[in-house]
């Protein structure tokens, strides 16, 4: 790759380089997924609130029984997946806005991915464990 604007090598302007898939090299997929997951969570908000209300004041046995029932487990799984995905994209935007050093930025984005996947998988594991009754 020649440096942008270096004479005699490339006539492309910096603007032309970021066109099409843009500076992130991923186009508008994050923008779109941020909205898909947001709509999903708006739809899931009422069922999720109902689930939390059902669990108030119950002990572990009661909570485990409710969380392990199929419709509630499915609502929780959908909510966890949508929120983990949504927050991964959101935090990446925040990192890209405020962290300017390239290495620290990449490390932060990687840590963000690890955090979101770990939180999601831990929650999913718990729900599946409750559903299978082991």
């Amino acid at each position, binding site marked *: 790759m020649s*440096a*942008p*604007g*270096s004479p005699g090598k490339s006539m492309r302007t910096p603007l032309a380089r970021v066109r099409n898939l843009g500076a992130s090299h991923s186009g508008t997929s994050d923008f779109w997924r941020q*909205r898909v997951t*947001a*709509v999903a*969570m*708006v739809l899931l*908000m009422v069922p999720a*609130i109902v689930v939390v*209300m059902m669990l*108030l*004041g119950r*002990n*572990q*046995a009661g*909570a*485990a029984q409710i*969380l392990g029932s199929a419709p509630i487990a499915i609502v*929780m799984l959908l909510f966890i997946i949508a*929120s*983990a995905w949504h*927050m991964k994209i*959101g*935090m990446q935007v*925040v990192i890209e806005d405020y962290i300017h050093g390239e290495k620290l930025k990449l490390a932060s984005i990687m840590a963000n991915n690890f955090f979101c996947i770990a*939180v999601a998988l*831990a*929650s999913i*594991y*718990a*729900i599946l*464990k*409750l559903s299978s009754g082991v």
Partner: protein
Amino acid sequence: MTARIERPLSPHLQTYRWTLTMALSIIHRATGVALYFGTLVLAWWLIAAATGPAAYANVQAFTSNFIGRLIVFGYTWALLHHMLSGIRHFVWDLGYGFKANEREALTWGAAIGGIALTVLLWIVAYAIGGGR
């Protein structure tokens, strides 16, 4: 690496006169970041429910002391505010609500709605759970 071209930067927050939409934009991002870390409590609670009575009792001890309850209350508000504020962004995404009075109304609606819904939910929660 190529040498950075020194372009003028846009002025930061302190330069601008504060507006409602600007404040809510910052709060939207701040609540998003808070919710991000709040998922740790959610994951902890689910894992505890899947682990056993002792682990679950730890979560309940946390959510019934003052600090823990304040965190869960704050999480409720952050979640509901972020949702309503996000719905406001959907309206804008669809190309509506850009007139001055419309965007102010949407923004006040999200701000007041978030607080009102949070208080309402907690009243219902106390009625159902008896303060537990």
